[in-house]
């Protein structure tokens, strides 16, 4: 059986791009959104989120900008780039095909009976 950690690792770039595409987010917000939307499935060591974000940024898929909040604190918001959007479209389609294929195996139809 594939460990959950490997599943999360393999899908992390798609998950992060997908969240950031919906709205620009900062690190802590991303952790909370991932945990909330997946009902706690995607929980990982929070410090390891930033290396993943920086890897995406180095690849030009997202870009980070510091923003000053009204309370004087600064947060680094991540925005998806055009390249990131193109990559996300491709990854979504790959995930769709993968999930369809897995479903076909796990829930055999009339041809399998």
């Amino acid at each position, binding site marked *: 059986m594939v460990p959950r950690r490997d599943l999360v690792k393999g899908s992390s770039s798609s998950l992060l791009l997908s969240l950031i595409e919906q709205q620009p987010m900062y690190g*802590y917000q991303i952790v909370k959104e991932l945990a909330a939307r997946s009902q706690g499935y995607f929980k990982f060591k*929070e410090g390891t989120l*930033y*290396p993943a974000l920086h890897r995406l940024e*180095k690849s030009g898929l997202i870009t980070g900008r510091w923003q000053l909040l009204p309370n004087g604190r600064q947060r680094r918001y991540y925005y998806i780039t055009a390249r990131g959007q193109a990559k996300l479209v491709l990854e979504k389609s790959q995930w769709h095909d993968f999930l369809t294929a897995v479903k076909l195996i796990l829930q055999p139809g009339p041809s399998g009976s």
Partner: protein
Amino acid sequence: MTPELIQYLESIKHNARLEDADETDVMSELEAHIEDKVKELTESGLTAEEALKTCLGEMGGTRLVARQIYEACSQGSWKQTLLTSLPHLLFGLLFALNWWHYPGWLSIVLLLILATTVYGWWHGKPTWVFSWLGYTLLPVLAVGLILPYLPRVWSFLALLIYFPMALWWLFHIIIQTNKRDWIFSSLMLLPLPVIIGWFLAVSSSGRFTEYSLQLLDYFAPWIGLSFIVLALTIAAFIRLRQRWLRVGLLATSGLLTVTLIVHYTIGRLNTFTFFGLILVMWGVLLVPALLEHYLKSGRKITLRRRHTAASTSQ
């Protein structure tokens, strides 16, 4: 900030070994994240101490986080790759194309190396500067080679002064470079076994004669090749993300270039010299790492003594 948090962030900062520009962003982000999380946990009813402990536990171990940050940020761009391998490439071409005969070319290459190193050193010591820095040690080496030509007594006295000063200068540069990362000291010293190897091959007595120049001319293509191998090594080094692969690459390349020198200088270098060169190569790799370890232990002991002194005086 509590001492526990400072220690956590300092440990990540030390192990991630980032460039200044990246370091500020990464550390500020982690700090902001921890502040948000601790605030949320204290609002949910935990004490400040419990909140910080829970938060750091959920952030992950400092070594894991630092390693992942290193792997995310360490890979250089293609521009950086070219800039870092350029001094080796220039030296390689100097010999491969026989430009070393012309003092004009030699001066241009040395001036370019010096100017680029000074520029990089004063502009935040980017990764690419360390391979250039290694070649700025050449004038120091050249002075050492000139000294045996002085009259006997003067030569002895000059060498007596030269060796401690040259060693002091070398260690000073290594310590400065180690402040960024010991692996860059190894990167800087990488040409050392190659230069020593070729020097011994053309002039085993330590003096340059007409015959040495003939040998230099004969070996020039292979000297060029060995520097081009270094340039390729550095290019791969910059593109690799994993630290252990980088160390492995430096060790393999050192072994390869030393073997190449011994192979192409048939009869000029014996087995004893080969092992001596291997020893120099391992020194290049291990001395900066050991020096960093030693300095780190020294810093820890000083801090502990200060801490003990402060607690006893209270």
